[in-house]
């Protein structure tokens, strides 16, 4: 059996503990006094900022409580932002404008600042906006990245790869012509990786790259490192910032982009996590993702439950290999979908809490390893082609929910996504939606907890938490995540939910404006300029790849032979992958590895 059952117990125990603290604060006077003292101290230390009209607002909003029991319930049950169990946020201040120097001196209590953990007056917190792109060839995506980030202080690039790359197949393989550069960028070699981020200072604190790829992730990671070394020398490796998705469990549960058998995929993944968490302290080597589970049709609760349980399973496996939870734990990150269903009012908040409790109580993790670092993307599935401009409103509402949940970073979908690779016009609007919410509006920039703590949100938290724990019990009864995967439990649950969703749309119980309500019969599909990869470009990619293979033929053989030996010996294969990535194409490496470990057997 897995540790998931222990997580369920830990969460239940925590709830009981909170109730005990409430009772104790009501019966034990000394304890009550301690609680009240702490509360008053917290309140007195909250800095105040002013709105543009001059209205003073506290930088942290707290519930108006004056009874020790209720205060204990809040402090132990929810926690302040940045405090266990992190319901209100992984950090104390997240999207707040930096406090002006004058105000800091007014109130001498510096508050620990956001994601980089530095004091006010130093670096302002990292901007949460992420720009997702990937199209055609590396140079085309590179151009798009420069366009998108031209006006941003920090460059936070998120990369989508084309189908062949996602499946570890080279662009010159039989049967993939037509797919090259479609739906994402084509990357076959380290040279493509150099082109992809050309012109960006990839070792700088103002740059981070995120790569949305899982099946061949360790190989792509190795290529990224090789490309960085080519441009900036070996010293750059320790400074690399970013995330690679690399989430094998969600692939076999939902997204199906797996290329090796599960056990082998997991082994390559854990090798990478171990290596990067020791050598690249700022890199997130796995993004434990519910997004694709949600997009494949799961309910929001299933999404959170499968994501969290997958995360706990990785932790369990890494610890079983002897890895230190306090070294790799802070390098785990999460990725959730945010749609329009009521559950999303608190889904990520609850996920953060369950993660923290599980990590602390079951795995003995320290504070940094308890924090659930979350990237959110608005729901692609909630967008539709009919009257697609409505998608702006859908995405705006989802963004609001994402930030109410205290996400650490967010990507907003572009309204034209249901029918094309997002065009520059609509991508800009999507990014601006975030700027309007965070910078223009006063909703998030003055006060932490501005919109949290309502009775409705609390009700959703309770209901969602109970439902997630029920899902955990079910998974545990099937032998934990691995057992449930082999029983195709998650897959069938997701498929059933997807089918129900479709039926609800068609019977009208799930209203979709422009589709089953207020439908505009006269509407025609908009004329759109499609970002398709021309045959000439596809051919260019194939030609470049063939040249690369020819040039490196001799070295490639040696590197692959060495890689195979390391894999067969059962050692950490990531260093050998790093060497292979210098001289081999993606397809050469996956092909050779598949000879040794086999192919993934698809699940239905």
């Amino acid at each position, binding site marked *: 059996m897995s540790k998931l059952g222990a997580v369920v117990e830990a969460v239940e125990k925590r709830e009981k503990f909170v109730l005990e603290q409430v009772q104790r604060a009501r019966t034990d006077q000394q304890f009550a006094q301690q609680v009240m003292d702490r509360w008053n101290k917290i309140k007195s230390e909250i800095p105040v900022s002013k709105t543009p009209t001059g209205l003073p607002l506290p930088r942290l909003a707290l519930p108006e409580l004056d009874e020790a029991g209720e205060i204990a319930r809040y402090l132990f049950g929810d926690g302040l932002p940045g405090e266990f169990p992190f319901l209100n946020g992984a950090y104390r201040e997240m999207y707040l404008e930096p406090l002006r120097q004058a105000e800091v001196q007014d109130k001498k209590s510096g508050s620990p600042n956001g994601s980089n953990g530095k004091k006010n007056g130093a670096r302002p917190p990292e901007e949460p906006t992420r720009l997702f792109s990937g199209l055609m060839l590396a140079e085309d995506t590179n151009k798009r990245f420069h366009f998108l980030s031209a006006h941003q202080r920090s460059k936070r690039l998120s990369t989508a790869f084309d*189908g062949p790359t996602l499946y570890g197949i080279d662009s010159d393989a039989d049967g993939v012509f037509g797919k090259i550069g479609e739906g994402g960028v084509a990357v076959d070699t380290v040279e493509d990786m150099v082109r992809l981020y050309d012109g960006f200072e990839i070792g700088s604190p103002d740059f981070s790259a995120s790569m949305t790829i899982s099946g061949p992730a360790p190989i792509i990671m190795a290529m990224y490192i090789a490309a960085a070394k080519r441009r900036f020398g070996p010293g750059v490796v320790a400074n690399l910032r970013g995330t690679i998705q690399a989430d094998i469990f969600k692939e076999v549960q939902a997204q199906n982009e797996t290329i090796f058998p599960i056990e082998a995929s997991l082994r390559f993944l854990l090798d990478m996590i171990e290596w990067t968490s020791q050598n690249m302290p700022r890199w997130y080597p796995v993004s434990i993702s519910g997004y694709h589970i949600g997009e494949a049709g799961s309910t929001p609760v299933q999404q959170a439950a499968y994501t969290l349980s997958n995360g706990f399973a990785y932790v369990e496996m890494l610890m079983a290999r002897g890895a230190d939870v306090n070294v790799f734990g802070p390098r785990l990150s999460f990725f959730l979908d945010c749609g329009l269903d009521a559950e999303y009012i608190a889904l990520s908040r609850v996920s953060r809490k369950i993660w923290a409790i599980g990590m602390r109580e079951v795995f003995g993790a320290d504070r940094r390893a308890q924090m659930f670092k979350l990237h959110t993307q608005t729901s692609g599935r909630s967008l539709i082609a009919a009257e697609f401009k409505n998608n702006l409103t859908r995405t705006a509402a989802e963004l609001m929910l994402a930030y109410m949940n205290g996400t650490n970073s967010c990507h907003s979908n572009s309204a034209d996504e249901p029918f094309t690779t997002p065009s520059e016009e609509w991508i800009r609007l999507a990014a601006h939606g975030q700027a309007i919410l965070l910078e223009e509006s006063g909703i998030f920039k003055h006060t932490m907890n501005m919109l949290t703590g309502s009775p409705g949100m609390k009700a959703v938290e309770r209901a969602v938490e109970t439902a997630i724990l029920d899902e955990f019990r079910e998974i545990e009864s099937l032998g934990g995540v691995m057992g449930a995967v082999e029983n195709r439990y998650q897959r069938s649950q997701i498929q059933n939910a997807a089918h129900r969703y479709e039926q609800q749309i068609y019977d009208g119980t799930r209203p979709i404006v422009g589709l089953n309500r207020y439908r505009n019969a006269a509407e025609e599909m908009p004329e759109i300029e499609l970002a398709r990869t021309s045959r000439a470009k596809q051919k260019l990619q194939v030609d470049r790849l063939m040249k690369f293979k020819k040039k490196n033929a001799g070295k490639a053989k040696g590197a692959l032979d060495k890689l195979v030996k390391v894999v067969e010996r059962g050692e950490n294969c990531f260093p050998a992958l790093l060497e292979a990535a210098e001289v081999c194409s993606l397809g050469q490496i996956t092909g050779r590895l598949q000879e040794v470990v086999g192919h993934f057997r698809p699940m239905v």
Partner: protein
Amino acid sequence: MAAPIRVLTAVPICDGHDSAINTINLEFIRHGIEVVYLGFHRYVGDIVRAAIQEDVAAVGISSYNGGHIEFFAEVVKQLKRKGAGDIKVFGGGGGTITHDDAREMKQKGVDQIFFAGTSLAEMAKFVHDRYGKPRGKRVKPKSADQELAHRLTAIEDGFQDGKRRTSNAERSTSKSEKRHQTSNIKHQTSVIGFTGPGGAGKTTLIDELVLRFLNHNSRSRIAILSHDPSVIGEGALLGDRATMINSQDDRVFMRSMATRGQAGGLSPATESCLNLLAHSGFDYVIIETVGTGQEALPFRNQLVDQTILVMNPDYGARLQLQKIVMLDVADIVVVNKTDLERAKAALSEIEHRLTQNKRKQQIVATVAKRHRDRGVDELFELITSKTGGKS
């Protein structure tokens, strides 16, 4: 009652978006359609081969990762080139396929493209209206596979009509058999039956054995007759192909059959179809039943040369073993998934149960999902050595 419509559904290469197709498959089944599901990340060649072998009326492709114009056109082109232009192609891709794309795809021979917003019921109705007509005179087969596929359809549909055509179809000599006879090879076909409870891993085991058959002899050809249950009053999801890797090969002929109302793990047409396959020049014909219960005894009338019962260690209490009838008649009992906790106990309990029979039954422990599993190697040796001694 007319025979159910058979369609093949698949998702193209480098595309794992199976959410839509899974939902559509379920809906098709509800509307009485038999769906052979090939799965995701499939090459054009795999789709065309499967469509011809399964002799479906149409192929439905769900594409979300781009490149659809080329991919659909290539499926149409290859079907035509292989003489199977009667198998039609339709599909969709949510919003990723534009109306302009769809026009171009139709010019290239695609029947229909569905857009986002089309109801599931509309799609099912389309399939019924467009592909539900009884087949007219069949085109002249261009390959042995195609001829065999047509004849299997004739047998299966014959049973549906209530005319139990026992052996007319299989009596005449098939092209492939002729081929073997003229090249003066006296052909030995060994028929191997696989049965066992659902979830024991029969399909994975067969696919792993196929890899070994193919590697063992570079000229051998294999047929697989696989069964899935018909849903009462509805169609069937014939999904074994979707989880197979090694059986997507030109040397493997696979046919998926729905039980069409017959209990016991096989279809009314199985015996006749098997007869035809056994005389079509294959080295091995593998037949896989649906997941069976304790009382099942699917292979009667000396239908097969060897019977293999595939179990997993989770059969419950020891007493349950006494009730599994197949344990008395199987030639080989495979205990798969022996990486599970209960495996050791299960193996010794089953072994003990078999000694009571006092027959020369063999027991093999496998982990079929494992690459190059030694247990599967052992099973392969057992099967091939027995075949050698067959008269």
